[in-house]
């Protein structure tokens, strides 16, 4: 796999301008052969435009696009050696599945016996064997998606671009296709650039995620890096469900405190004016008597595997995710704690601040109500289970 350097994609300060607005603003990145790279971002962030510029469907206003050693910036789409899967699938409605799949091979004048051979192989690969004679209208959404994939695979182009290929499918099918696409990519060693606004797709499929906002790259890293070390408040809020809590910090007596909650300082005083980021799953809920940041339960949402609590801290609301069913009552006071590594500090400009170390907020210090107080369990978990079931019909 060393010789496949011709699959490397390189963007150098590529821009796309319409009139006086820049949809894509001088972005640069490299995609290595065999990599599965996700372009992630909210709608209108320029991710699709970027993909279409790589495909050649849109002409770059500035910058260079290279594939391998070739400068493809001004090449027509057909000469770039790429295939693409569209959000709408872009299947030809009047052609059978088989004709749809071999459409490109016919355009490239591949001889008929070879076409048939490749069709057979690809149809098996994507499980479309029994449907080859059908028209796209007679297929389900998932099957149409497979035809679109097959059309991309059969071209045997090393690079495949995907523009939100799963967004027209229902949730269950989406999960299935996610795994299938990822497995196909690994098996065929394809280089994939995949556009999505769905962070679940990005996290689960990508070797690397490029997060974009307003035509610029916010963060370019592995899913792990995006989750654990978000480069900005935007990146922090975009990844994770529910999103990371972002709490404004103000200057307090002994350091920066959460606005409206002056009793516990959570970070050095320099962090004031910025934001404190806490993932809902990193927050511990302790008894009211424990140490930690005082909070009050606003409501809870039971999701089966876990419960999402909405809590009021000072003037702020934040979400916490706790495992299982948590019988916490509305209005119940409690304390919050978290590990120092779980707290992320962002400056007033939204960028991550690694120069400051957030304070440890531990529940273990306080002993106002005897010994058991440090346990991170809600008070009512000691109740007989029958009680909890009585609340929940």
């Amino acid at each position, binding site marked *: 796999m060393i010789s496949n350097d011709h699959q490397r994609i390189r963007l150098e300060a590529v821009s796309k301008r319409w009139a006086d607005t820049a949809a894509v603003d001088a972005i640069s990145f490299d995609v290595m052969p065999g990599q599965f790279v996700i372009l992630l971002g909210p709608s209108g962030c320029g991710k699709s435009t970027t993909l279409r510029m790589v*495909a*050649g469907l849109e002409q770059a206003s500035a910058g260079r696009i290279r594939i391998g050693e070739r400068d493809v910036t001004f090449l027509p*789409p057909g000469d770039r050696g790429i295939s693409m899967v569209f959000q709408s699938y872009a299947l030809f409605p*009047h052609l059978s599945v088989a004709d749809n799949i071999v459409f490109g091979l016919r355009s*490239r004048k591949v001889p008929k016996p070879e076409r048939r051979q490749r069709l057979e192989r690809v149809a098996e690969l994507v499980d479309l064997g029994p449907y080859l004679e059908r028209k796209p209208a007679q297929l389900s959404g998932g099957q149409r998606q497979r035809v679109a994939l097959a059309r991309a695979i059969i071209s045997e182009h090393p690079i495949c671009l995907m523009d939100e290929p799963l967004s027209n499918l229902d949730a269950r099918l989406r999960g299935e296709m996610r795994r299938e696409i990822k497995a196909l990519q690994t098996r065929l060693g394809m280089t994939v650039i995949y556009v999505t606004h769905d962070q679940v797709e990005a996290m689960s499929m990508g070797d690397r995620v490029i997060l974009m906002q307003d035509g610029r790259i916010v963060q370019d890293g592995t899913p792990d890096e995006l989750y654990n070390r978000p480069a900005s408040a935007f990146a922090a809020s975009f990844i994770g469900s529910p999103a990371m809590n972002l709490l404004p910090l103000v200057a307090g007596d002994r350091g920066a405190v959460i606005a409206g909650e002056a009793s516990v300082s959570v970070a050095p005083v320099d962090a004031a004016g910025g934001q404190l980021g806490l993932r809902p799953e990193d927050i511990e809920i302790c008894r009211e008597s424990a140490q930690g940041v005082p909070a009050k339960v606003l409501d809870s949402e039971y999701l089966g595997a876990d419960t999402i609590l909405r809590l009021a801290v000072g003037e702020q609301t934040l979400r916490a995710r706790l495992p299982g069913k948590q019988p916490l009552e509305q209005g119940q006071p409690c304390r919050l704690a978290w590990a120092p590594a779980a707290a992320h500090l962002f400056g007033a400009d939204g960028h991550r601040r690694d120069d400051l170390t957030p304070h440890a907020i531990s529940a273990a210090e306080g002993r106002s109500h005897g010994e058991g107080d440090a346990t991170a369990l809600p008070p009512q978990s000691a109740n007989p289970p029958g009680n909890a079931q009585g609340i929940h019909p």
Partner: protein
Amino acid sequence: MLIHNADRRMQIYGALLLLPAAVLLATFAYLPTIATLINSLFLPGFRGEPPSFAGLENYQLLIEDQTFWRVARNNLIYALGTIPTSIALALGMALFVNARLPGRGFVRMAYFTPTILPMIAAANIWMFFYAPQIGLFNSLLGALGFSGVNWLGDPSVALGSVIVMTVWKEAGFFMIFYLAALQGMAPELKEAADLEGTSRWSFFWRVTFPLLMPTTLFVLINALINAVRVVDHLFILTKGGPNNATNLLLYYVYENAFSFFDRTYAATITVVILLVLAVVATVKFAILDRRTHYQ
């Protein structure tokens, strides 16, 4: 019983909804057709006498009528001259104005203008183009040093002149249908084809044209009907002359009915036209419909 009643009420309800359209169709389409059919079996009555039943005598006359065959041949040439040309031109214009080009709206409007002009007005404009001495075409030819042509007066040219005008008039109308169909086509199809290096030519024949088939079929039927519906511009341009060189079926019907006052013979020709049209339309739908992809 209750279900049965409800079912019946729904049927009556449905029939009532259909009634207005059925009444209009019966009054203006079916009854006249039947009346025409009956009329064609009679000979006209003279001096106030009632028409006398003649069986198929009118049809016998028709077969022996040299003028009828001349007119039918003219109409065939007219159809073959106008239908493919205007459809091809309409498709070409639609593809052209569907592309990104400056002043697209203006060009579309310009192409459509002939359609919104009343036929009589359009024919009058073309009279100026075709006029032997002062006409636009002959003036242009004269400026280039050629001698002029008597566009509408020369029996060998006149039908061609009428055909050209019809194509000019119809192409813009058909273009609108093609344009609408083209606008309904997903742009991703072209992009997907581009990514495989499909040439424009190949894309047109493999994707665009097949997807436009329903439109083509519709336009074809319309063009056919229009080809046997021509009265008005013959009325202005040639009155069927010279020596029936531009006489077409419906104009011949008109002549028989209102110039020669032979209503029953006119009815006979009409019945023949209707039969021919019905056969052609049936064949077209039967053959082309099977090969047409409807979305």
